[in-house]
C-alpha cells in the first residue's frame, strides 16, 4: 500500500489545485509544466511562479515539444535552485533526465518530479493545424478505457516503459475510470511524502492496479512487435540503410533534441569527423564518386554506439527530422537490444551504473570466438 493524496475534482483541474496549493504555501518556488502560452493555444513548457499563471497549465497534455528531461538538465546544470521546484514529466522524459544525472548533467536536489502512467503523445506537426486540440476528447476517452489512441508517435504506441519508476508523485491515468471525478496522487518517495506532510489535503492509502497496467502492457507489446517487424524488413544490409538514411540532410536535429545527446560539441560536428582533401582523393580512387558532405551512415551508426545504451525511446528525434526518417523506431529497436544485453532499462534506477562504465570479470565469453 502506498500513501496518496486526493483532490475530489476532475484530474486535469485537480492537479492545478495541487500545484496552486504548493505555490501558495511556499512549499515550492516554481512549477514546471506544459502551458498554453498564447491566445492561439500554442503549448510549450513553462516555469511558473505565479499561481494565476497555473490556470493556463496543461500538465498531462499529449504533446512533447521538447524532451523535458533535457530541459530539467539545463535548469539544474549550473546548480540546483535554493528553493524547491516541482516538475511534471512524462515517464520517458524522467528516464531521460535520470540518464543525464548519471552523466553529471543535472541534479535532483530541491527538485520534485510528478509523473504519470503515460498514454503517449502526438507528433508535434499535428499541433500546427489544430488536429491535437480537436482530438482531445477522443484521446482521453481512449485512455480512460485503457485503449491506445490513434495517430500517436509510433514509439509511443509501442512503449512498454510507461510507468514512471523514479517519480516522487505518480498519477495513474491509464484505464482510469474515475479521471473526471477524482485526482489521486501516489506518493512514490519519502521526498514526496515530506513535501505533502502538512498540506491541507485529503490523504489516503491505495495500491497501483498492477493487473490493469499489465493488461495495457500487453497491448503495447503487440504494437511493438508490429512496428519492429515492419522496420526489420527495411533493415536489409548496407543498401537497406542507404535507402532509409539516403535523404538525411545531415542537420543533426535528431542529436540536438535527444535528451541523452548532451555533448556541447558533438563528435560528428568536430574536426575529428571532417574529411581532408587527401581523404576525398582516396575515396574517389576507390569508389569513383562520393556523396558530399559524406558520413551520413557513420553519423547515425556512430550515434547509436554512443547513446543506444541510454536511449529512452521518447521519439523526439523522429519528430524533429525534416525529411521524415524513422529515426526513433530504429534507435528504439537498437537501444532496447543493446540494453537487454546488460539487463538494463535506461533511466529506471538512478543508482544503476551505465553498463559501459562498469564490467563483470566473467561475462560475454561467447564474444571472443
Amino acid at each position, binding site marked *: 500500500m502506498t500513501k496518496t493524496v486526493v483532490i475530489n475534482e476532475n484530474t486535469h483541474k485537480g492537479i492545478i489545485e495541487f500545484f496552486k496549493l504548493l505555490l501558495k504555501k511556499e512549499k515550492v518556488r516554481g512549477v514546471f509544466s506544459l502551458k498554453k502560452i498564447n491566445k492561439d493555444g500554442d503549448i510549450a513548457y513553462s516555469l511558473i511562479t505565479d499561481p494565476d499563471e497555473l490556470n493556463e497549465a496543461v500538465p498531462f497534455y499529449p504533446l512533447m515539444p521538447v524532451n523535458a528531461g533535457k530541459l530539467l538538465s539545463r535548469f539544474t546544470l549550473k546548480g540546483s535552485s535554493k528553493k524547491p521546484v516541482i516538475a511534471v514529466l512524462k515517464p520517458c522524459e524522467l528516464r531521460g533526465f535520470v540518464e543525464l544525472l548519471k552523466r553529471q548533467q543535472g541534479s535532483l536536489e530541491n527538485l520534485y518530479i510528478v509523473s504519470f502512467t503515460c498514454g503517449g503523445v502526438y507528433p508535434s506537426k499535428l499541433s500546427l493545424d489544430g488536429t491535437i486540440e480537436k482530438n482531445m476528447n477522443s484521446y482521453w476517452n481512449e485512455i480512460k478505457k485503457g485503449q491506445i489512441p490513434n495517430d500517436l508517435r509510433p514509439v509511443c504506441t509501442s512503449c512498454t516503459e510507461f510507468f514512471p519508476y523514479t517519480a516522487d508523485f505518480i498519477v495513474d491515468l491509464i484505464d482510469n475510470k474515475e479521471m473526471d471525478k477524482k485526482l489521486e496522487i501516489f506518493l512514490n518517495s519519502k521526498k514526496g511524502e515530506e513535501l505533502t506532510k502538512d498540506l491541507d489535503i485529503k490523504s489516503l492509502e491505495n495500491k497501483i492496479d498492477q493487473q490493469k497496467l499489465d493488461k495495457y502492457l500487453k497491448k503495447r507489446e503487440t504494437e511493438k512487435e508490429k512496428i519492429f517487424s515492419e522496420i*526489420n524488413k527495411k*533493415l*536489409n*544490409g*548496407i*543498401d*537497406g*540503410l*542507404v535507402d532509409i538514411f*539516403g535523404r538525411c540532410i545531415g542537420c543533426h536535429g535528431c542529436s540536438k533534441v535527444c535528451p541523452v545527446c548532451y555533448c556541447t560539441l558533438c*563528435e560528428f560536428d568536430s574536426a575529428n569527423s571532417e574529411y581532408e582533401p587527401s581523404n576525398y582523393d582516396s575515396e574517389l580512387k*576507390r*569508389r*569513383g*564518386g*562520393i*556523396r558530399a558532405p*559524406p*558520413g*551520413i*551512415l*557513420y553519423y547515425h*551508426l*556512430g550515434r*547509436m*554506439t554512443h547513446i*543506444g*545504451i541510454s536511449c529512452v525511446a521518447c521519439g523526439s528525434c523522429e519528430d524533429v527530422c525534416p525529411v521524415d526518417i524513422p529515426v526513433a523506431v*530504429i534507435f528504439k*529497436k*537498437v537501444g532496447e*537490444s*543493446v540494453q537487454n*544485453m*546488460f539487463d538494463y532499462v535506461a533511466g529506471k534506477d538512478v543508482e544503476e551504473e551505465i*553498463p*559501459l*562504465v562498469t*564490467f*563483470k*570479470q566473467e*561475462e*560475454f565469453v561467447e*564474444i*571472443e*570466438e
Partner: protein
Amino acid sequence: MKKDEDFLPKIIAFLCNWCSYAGADLAGTSRLKYPASILPIRVMCSSRVDPLFVLRAYLGGADGVLVAGCHPGDCHYQEGNYFTRRRFAMLKKVVEDVGLEADRLRLSWVSASEGQKYAKVAKEFTEKIKEMGENSAKNKIFL
C-alpha cells in the same frame, strides 16, 4: 560481390601493444604462415579502440575488422579489456541490429606468447571473410 579464390580480404586489425601486437610479432619471427590480409594498427590497449574506429573501417570498405587484446584479467592497465569486451559486444549488437554483417567484426584475446594463436585467428578469420565475400560498402557512393 567477389567470392572467388583470388579475393584477398582487407582486414584491419587493432592490436594492443603489450599482448596481441607482441603475439603478432612472435608469429612473424617464428615464421608462422598466415594470409597477407591483415593490416595491423598498434594501440596501447584494446580499450583504446573506439567503436567509431571500427565503424570507419567497416564503412570505409574493410572486409573485416579484428580487435585483439590481452586475456581478461591480464590487461597491462588492469581493467581496460573488460571495457573492450562490453563495448565490442555492444558494437556487434548495433551492427547486427541494423542489418549489417556483424560477423565481419571479431574480438580475440592473444597474449604476447601466443604467436600460434595469432596465426590461427588470422587464418580462420581470413577464411571466414573469404566465404562472406567483399564488403559491398566499398563501392557505395551514398554513404
